[in-house]
């Protein structure tokens, strides 16, 4: 149990109070009729380049990322830096494919990836597979955002002792989040993202300048890191070793990222394809910051917080995720610790809000409207989404309070493997209608099942040691199973097409994919 840090707590609570007000006030920002689903759930598709930059950045670079990536550097070393090539590779993808998806979704009023797949392929079961994958992959992701809040609240020393009271600050934060998301929709995280990102940038730049200065420079810091952690291990004979794992983790994570429902929600809320393309050049600022934050793991090693007695309880409770909070407590005055922790805590609320909105959009559009009530009024549809966003957040809260954190982390790992299986239908679907919908569905199922089995076989670690003709290729399971998925879909497409009479269904036209 940490001791309460007075100044840190005051700054933290004040900033939380401010964003609570902002979240509710956001309902009046660029005012729209919040009884329409695209107004509540996509902010009316009205965000320009600037707001989109904050919104997409605040959405993709989550609080959990800011805690977990340095924690991985602290524990495992160089491999944590895969987050950097990962976030380099995503932007060409964003630049090339997503403006097309934005245009077709704008033209047909689609608000989810499953909407698009339904329109493109006309197969409600394929659309259902996309929907369920999106929902299942998003839920543990929301739960992990709560872990980010838990860690900073624990480090502030305000989590009560034992039982439900231990989680009281977390519950309060989530009730606030649920309330402003319900009332303001996507406008709430969009406005809060601006505050959060300013705080995060201040924290990251200060930390990466001040802490190395305190510790006597980068050479001293890297000298304190065990040599085997500083670089990737050079692969031995007959294996691609750590290099293969590093590159496939980066590439596979990049393919998966924009398939997550919350990524697409943020992208579709942009007001033009231009705004998305411009952001592909501007969002790397966040990658740079993430890379700098990853270095904090090494700073934490050099500062020796892992063995300091005052942090022993924190590390015992939160594991390596406590490395960054401990480093801040060690290095900064109380008021700045409060600011940095608020950045992480608020940084959890932004993506959590967007994720719950994305999940609500998915359920409302692609399950409720497709299978239960086919002709809802606009108002009913928006109201349903608001309720679902509450249920989703409540579910995540219950999950994190009553289930060990390890399960959320494992499920999030599996979520990456699952969501990447929607790539052929969604991302390739943006370019071609060549694939047969049933072939895509079988590819999806095979990839999902094989990926889950491989992940379990490798003890729920992300990489699988694929052995071929005497060579071993340790690599990201998601990427391997995506290849299986694609091969199956491609091979089965001519087979299924032989049965089909007439031209395939397609509600979209070639011209819909451009301005």
């Amino acid at each position: 149990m940490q001791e309460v840090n007075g100044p840190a707590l005051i700054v933290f609570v004040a900033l939380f109070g401010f964003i609570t007000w902002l979240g509710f006030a956001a309902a009046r920002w660029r005012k729209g009729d919040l009884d329409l689903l695209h107004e509540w759930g996509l902010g009316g598709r009205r965000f320009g380049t600037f707001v989109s930059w904050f919104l997409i950045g605040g959405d993709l670079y989550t609080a959990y990322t800011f805690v977990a990536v340095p924690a991985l550097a602290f524990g495992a070393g160089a491999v944590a830096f895969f987050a950097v090539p990962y976030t380099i590779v995503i932007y060409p993808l964003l630049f090339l494919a997503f403006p097309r998806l934005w245009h077709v979704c704008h033209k047909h009023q689609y608000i989810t990836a499953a909407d698009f797949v339904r329109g493109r392929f006309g197969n409600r079961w394929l659309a259902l597979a996309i929907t369920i994958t999106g929902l299942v992959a998003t839920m543990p992701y929301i739960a992990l955002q709560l872990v980010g809040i838990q860690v900073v609240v624990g480090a502030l020393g305000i989590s009560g002792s034992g039982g439900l009271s231990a989680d009281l600050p977390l519950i309060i934060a989530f009730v606030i989040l649920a309330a402003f998301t319900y009332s303001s929709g996507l406008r709430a995280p969009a406005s809060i993202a601006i505050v959060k990102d300013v705080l995060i940038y201040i924290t990251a730049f200060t930390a990466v300048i001040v802490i190395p200065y305190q510790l006597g420079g980068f050479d001293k810091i890297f000298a304190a890191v065990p040599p085997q952690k500083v670089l990737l291990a050079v692969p031995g004979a007959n294996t691609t070793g750590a290099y293969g794992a590093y590159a496939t983790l980066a590439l596979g994570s990049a393919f998966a990222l924009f398939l997550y429902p919350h990524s697409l929600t943020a992208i579709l809320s942009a007001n033009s394809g231009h705004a998305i393309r411009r952001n592909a050049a501007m969002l790397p600022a966040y990658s740079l910051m993430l890379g700098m934050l990853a270095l904090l793991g090494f700073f934490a090693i050099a500062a020796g917080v892992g063995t300091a007695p005052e942090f022993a309880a924190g590390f015992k409770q939160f594991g390596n995720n406590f490395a960054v909070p401990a480093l801040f407590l060690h290095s900064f005055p109380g008021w700045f610790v409060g600011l940095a922790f608020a950045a992480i805590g608020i940084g959890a609320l932004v993506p959590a809000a967007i994720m719950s909105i994305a999940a609500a959009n998915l359920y409302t559009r692609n399950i409720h409207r497709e299978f239960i009530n086919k002709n809802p009024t606009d108002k009913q549809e928006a109201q349903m989404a608001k309720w679902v966003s509450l249920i989703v957040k409540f579910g995540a809260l219950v999950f994190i309070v009553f289930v060990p954190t390890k399960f959320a982390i494992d499920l999030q790992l599996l979520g990456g493997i699952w969501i990447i299986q929607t790539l052929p239908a969604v991302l390739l679907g943006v370019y071609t209608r060549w694939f047969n919908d049933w072939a895509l569905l079988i590819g999806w199922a095979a990839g999902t099942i094989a990926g889950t089995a491989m992940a379990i076989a490798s003890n729920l670690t992300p990489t699988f040691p694929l052995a071929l003709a005497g060579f071993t290729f340790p690599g990201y399971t998601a990427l391997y199973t995506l290849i299986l998925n694609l091969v199956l879909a491609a091979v089965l497409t001519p087979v299924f097409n032989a049965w089909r009479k007439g031209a395939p269904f397609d509600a979209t036209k070639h011209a819909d994919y451009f301005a």
Partner: protein
Amino acid sequence: MNDANTKRRGWSWWYLLFIIQCAVALWPPFYNRLEPTWLGMPFFYWFQLLWVLVGAGLTAIVYFATET
């Protein structure tokens, strides 16, 4: 539909810059080394951080070259 939109439908040679950007980022043997260090930081770290900036620059070039 005007000419600019028609042009954007197809392939642009400028997209090759993206291949450079990704290929370097995804080839660890290229940067998995200590020397040369910069401000005491091993090459592995500062090079990848620098490559983020280079990637952003290349993306900006493609943007201005293909957006008319």
